[in-house]
């Protein structure tokens, strides 16, 4: 199961990008306020965990960054490129540089793992090539390396819906990696996985950040995962940022401040190694 950083199958990384949000507000068509004046600056190559209660705006934040949710006011720039006023073409090009991972994996179940990972090459492939299924050797190579990196290469020709949840999420990570992304956005990537698998996937994400230098933003429900895998911790409540600091130094009091209520057992994922109250000084698990 361990799939972490084996250097031989490393995907060459492009220069990572930073993210700037200036006073960003998102109001949904039904009037709900998703983000309320968020200002954030994320440096290239950072590993950021975003936590907050359900409905606090974590998904909205992540999805505004790649333009899946339109902003009502404010400015978002990724790698210096403005997102909110990008035209359709520019937005597609920008999205090509930003990998995204979803809670429900979002694979096309009826097609092969290889085809799913090649979706990561869409922005870099002319439409006629995708229509003929005639991908460049380099695109195929990128897809295969990305799969090897998450330890899923042997499933290349399997149908995606024949995989377990954890395997599907690793294929989804490979799909994002095949983009050679400069930023990786993950919206609760482990919320539908069991604890051991959740740790495997989180280790993959943290290795991607460490070895490839890609900027990673990951939404998490569980505070122990945030503390363990995040380097920087951003806490959200009611569409605003209420905490922004180092993840390692954040004790339960910080989470109680973010959640605005006492910590409960269900705020943690039962850890495989039983280190819920892990000492912050211990090194990253490998």
């Amino acid at each position, binding site marked *: 199961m361990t799939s972490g950083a084996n250097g031989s199958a490393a995907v060459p990384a492009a220069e990572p990008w930073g993210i700037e949000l200036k006073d960003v507000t998102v109001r949904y068509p039904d009037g709900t306020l998703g983000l309320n004046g968020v200002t954030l600056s994320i440096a290239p190559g950072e590993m950021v965990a975003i936590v907050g209660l359900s409905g606090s705006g974590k998904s909205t934040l992540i999805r505004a960054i*790649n333009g*899946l949710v339109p902003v009502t006011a404010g400015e978002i720039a990724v790698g210096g490129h403005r997102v909110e006023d990008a035209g359709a073409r520019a937005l*597609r*090009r*920008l*999205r*090509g*540089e*930003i*990998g*995204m991972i*979803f809670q*429900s*994996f*979002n*694979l*096309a*179940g*009826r*097609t092969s793992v290889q*085809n799913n990972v*090649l*979706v*990561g090459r*869409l*922005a*870099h*492939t002319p*439409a006629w090539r*995708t*229509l003929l299924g005639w991908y460049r050797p380099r695109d195929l190579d990128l897809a295969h390396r990305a799969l090897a990196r998450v330890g899923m290469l042997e499933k290349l020709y399997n149908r995606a819906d024949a995989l377990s949840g954890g395997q599907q999420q690793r294929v*989804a990570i490979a*799909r*994002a990696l095949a*983009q050679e992304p400069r930023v990786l956005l993950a919206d609760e990537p482990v919320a539908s996985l069991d604890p051991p698998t959740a740790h495997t996937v989180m280790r993959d994400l943290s290795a991607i950040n460490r070895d490839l230098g890609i900027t990673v933003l990951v939404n998490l429900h569980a505070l122990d995962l945030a503390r363990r895998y995040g380097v920087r911790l951003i806490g959200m409540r009611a569409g605003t940022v209420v905490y922004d600091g180092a993840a390692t130094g954040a004790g339960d009091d910080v989470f109680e401040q973010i959640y605005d209520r006492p910590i409960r057992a269900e705020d943690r994922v039962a850890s495989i190694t039983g280190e819920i109250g892990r000492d912050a000084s211990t090194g990253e698990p490998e």
Partner: protein
Amino acid sequence: MSTTAGIVLPPRPSGRWRRWAGAALVAAITLVTLLPGIGIGFELTSLLENWRNGAERIGRLLVPDWSFFPRTVRPLLETLQMAVIATAVGAGLSLPLSFWAARTTNPGAVGRGIVRAVLNTVRAVPDLLYAAILVAMVGVGALPGILALVLFSVGIIVKLVSEAVEATPTGALEAGRAAGGSQAQVIHALALPDAWPPFVNQTLYMLELNVRAAAVLGLVGAGGIGLLIDQVRSFYRYDQIALIIVELVVIIIVIEAVSGWARRRLV
């Protein structure tokens, strides 16, 4: 806002009356059609009076005139050809149109609205009427029949397949858009695999419908066995009509078997 034992319910979304209004409308329409004077004039008595007449003809339908077979071969083949060509052309046109007509694969409300409006119109006109009009435009023969069946096929396949497309989860499409894929790329790479089984199923079923429809298009001069049916019918040769019915039944059964086989291989 109502309060029940201390809990406060959020305000109800508007539009719940629509369901009741729909049911009331159906009831009203049914009532009006049954009213004497304006209604369809449906009477049980006339059904009983004509029964004696009909029974005798049904009797003759039970004894097919087998010697008539050689004359039916060519028009039957033409009927089949019309149905196969129209189904193939119609299905080819329907596949892209289905994605164009589905909300999940075409977020543009204007383009989608236009496609849907045109298709609703296409579907509202009966195939026999298309054939009659097209015969007047392009002349007697198989061509107007084929054109009529293409319209008939597109109207039905696009409706059913686009509904199937809208019913499939959109997560994969969203992932494709998030990766920077264009609309066409996302549809081809991610929507097509899911739309393929319903598309194949509807197309094979459409072939069956088209054989049946093609058999009567000849009544208005649009080729196929219908012309022959019209002739023997005017001479009250119910035994010969019986033979044609037997032949059509056999063809439908064969198509059913072939499409079952094709379905297992294509889906």
